[in-house]
């Protein structure tokens, strides 16, 4: 068998859903034993929830098996789903973006995240969504660092048919944010969405830069921005925790947008993020089209995690 065939076959196996694999493991067993739990551990690890979270979930399930003396293997799957769902249920986050009320106009959303997660694309989709709800939307191109980032946002503004404020490449991003806020007020805009440059969470000066953007806004008006959303790529592994932690420390995030869920990655890292840092997921990105932005639904997410 050639390498290609072998790989294809290997992929077929991984493509099989996780629930199916657990079921396979269950067949032929009359009770939940250590081997079965090891199997479940391997399967959980694949979802990127992380080794700490996996240990925690496994421990909880063991407890429950003891408590309910439920030793039938088929109980494993419902237990698993319960465990993960409960992480999101602790404090039910409002699903999706809040509709802006006229008293808090403009509703300002600051979008942050590491490089290549899909910030600009998400902003395009979000602008389209608000616009369709009958809001006046303004975009701010405060990613003045990456080559052609401004042009990219301009194209999205065009597609969503909303206005955009931009400066030259290399301009101070905080000044773009400042100007956009002034413009949003003057033009009586309902929603202002600010795009920022991708930055790795470990870069001290870049994190200071984004803190300054937020500071400049808050100085204009207390409580602005109402939302600071971190865009997270679903393919991200354990580094996602570090991203959420550092951005949260710097900016006090109000939510996470989980993108690229249309691939094979499950984005399980948000479970660990919610568990450790209590930052809710508010929206998910599921494709490249302008409509491909959905509210986050824990039920759906947990099903997809194992589906």
């Amino acid at each position, binding site marked *: 068998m050639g*390498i*290609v065939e072998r*790989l*294809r076959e*290997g*992929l077929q196996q*991984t*493509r099989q859903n996780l629930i199916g694999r657990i079921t396979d493991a269950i067949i032929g067993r009359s009770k939940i034993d250590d081997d079965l739990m090891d199997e479940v551990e*391997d399967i959980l*690890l*694949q*979802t*990127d929830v*992380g*080794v*700490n979270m996996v240990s925690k979930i496994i421990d909880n399930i063991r407890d429950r098996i003891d408590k309910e003396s439920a030793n039938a293997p088929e109980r494993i799957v419902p237990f698993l789903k319960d465990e993960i769902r409960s992480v999101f249920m602790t404090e039910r986050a409002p699903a999706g973006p809040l509709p802006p009320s006229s008293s808090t106009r403009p509703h300002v959303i600051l979008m942050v995240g*590491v*490089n*290549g*997660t*899909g910030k600009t694309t998400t902003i395009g989709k979000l602008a389209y969504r608000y616009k369709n709800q009958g809001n006046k939307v303004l975009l701010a191109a405060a990613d003045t*660092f*990456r*080559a*052609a*980032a401004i*042009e*990219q946002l*301009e*194209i*999205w503004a065009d597609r969503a048919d909303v206005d955009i404020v931009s400066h030259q*490449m290399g301009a101070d991003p905080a000044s773009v944010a400042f100007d956009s806020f002034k413009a949003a007020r003057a033009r009586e805009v309902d929603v202002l969405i600010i795009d920022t440059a991708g930055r*790795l*969470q*470990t*870069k*001290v*000066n870049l994190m200071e830069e984004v803190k300054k953007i937020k500071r400049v806004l808050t100085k204009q008006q207390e409580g602005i921005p109402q939302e600071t959303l971190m865009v997270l*790529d679903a*393919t*991200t*592994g*354990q*580094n*996602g925790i*570090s991203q959420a932690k550092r951005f949260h420390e710097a900016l006090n995030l109000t939510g996470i947008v989980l993108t*690229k869920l*249309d*691939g*094979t*990655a*499950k984005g*399980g*890292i948000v479970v660990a993020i919610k568990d450790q840092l209590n930052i809710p997921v508010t929206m998910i990105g599921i494709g*490249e089209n302008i409509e491909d932005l959905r509210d986050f639904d824990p039920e759906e997410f947990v099903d997809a995690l194992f589906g």
Partner: protein
Amino acid sequence: MFQELTGKLETVFKKLRGYGKLSEKNIQDSLREVRRALLEADVHYKVARQFIARVQEKAIGQDVFKSITPGQQVIRVVYDELTALLGGTARDVHFSPVPPTLIMLVGLQGSGKTTAAGKLARYFRQKGRKALLVAADIYRPAAIDQAEILARSAGVPCFHRREGTDPVDICVEAISFGQQEGCDVILFDTAGRLHIDDEMMNELVRIKKKIVPHEILLVADGMTGQDAVNMAGQFQAHLEFDGILLTKLDGDARGGAALSMLSVTGKPIKFVSVGEKLDALERFHPDRMASRILGMGDILSLVEKAEKAIDEERAKEFEEKLRKESFTFEDFLEQLDQIKGMGSLEHILGMIPGMGGNVFKNLSVDETAFTRIEAMIRSMTREERWRPEIIDGSRRRRIAAGSGTTVQEVNRLLKQFSMMKKMVKNLSKMNMKQFGKSLFSFR
């Protein structure tokens, strides 16, 4: 890069070294922790399991138990296996004997293909080759603009077609354009795509069939989790790429995806991208990386970087000046420039043995520190730079105001500078034997 993993492994190894005698159980316990560290670093669970099995077999099979330093022996086995897992020796890009060499970049959205293409263009230009950047991503908004801007900063031409041309045609046309221009390396920046998008994957296959590239590089995000094996496996199944270019390794990415992709596809990592600037691209050396992951540092790369950035003649001159106490702030400024030429501080520190893991785990390096020192020195008059002793209170205030710093910072700089001079003076007075003694007295 890899700090977390390094830190975790250091802890395990420290324990391991502490045992005078190793039992099979000691080894198993340690390896269980190694497995955990690997999983936390996003190594695929199957790869981690195989790795541990191999180390265990070798460690227990060897005469580890009889050795005087059994812990060290086990670490050696881990190092060897890690090097093997990372691909053994550094691999080069395949160059065509008849130019131009065609290099195709593929990968998921947001993995950093276009930026990587710009960096590669600069890399090859620095090697004395003439590169051409081809913008074959016609889908993502402003991707062509981005490629153009990057090509311009890399100092290479960029080939693109504005209208809705088929990417296959763009690539074919680009080759004849490159030949006319006398380019010997052509870099094809393709659109990002999902590995399960058959239509888009098929486009890559069509490009590959038509242009027959000498090298296909998979550009992959160093922060990827367990899905890395699915992704790399699919690209491999469709395209049989030749190597991996790993991006975004300048954060605290644990890079385990690299280990997984390699082990699943058998394709070597050829380049790693370690920063936002165009020059932040390095060839990948598995042995050096293994040593870096295990907290043993990477002196070889450090020396290479230093050689590139620092002029040896000038370094000797500086040394002489320091010895004769004629070292001034002007010389200091020049030295700072050379160090800055070596890349980011954080990156450099990671290459020093023992500095990679726990030491800097919770410390973020402020890259602006150099800039502030530079600003302070630049705010000094020529006379002040030559004779810092004349800098009194009023001069300090002026320097602080001129450089946008505080008087305290100026004080600190002056103090450090005079301490440095004193230290060197003392050093040169001692002979080497005394020097050695004084070093050991610190331990």
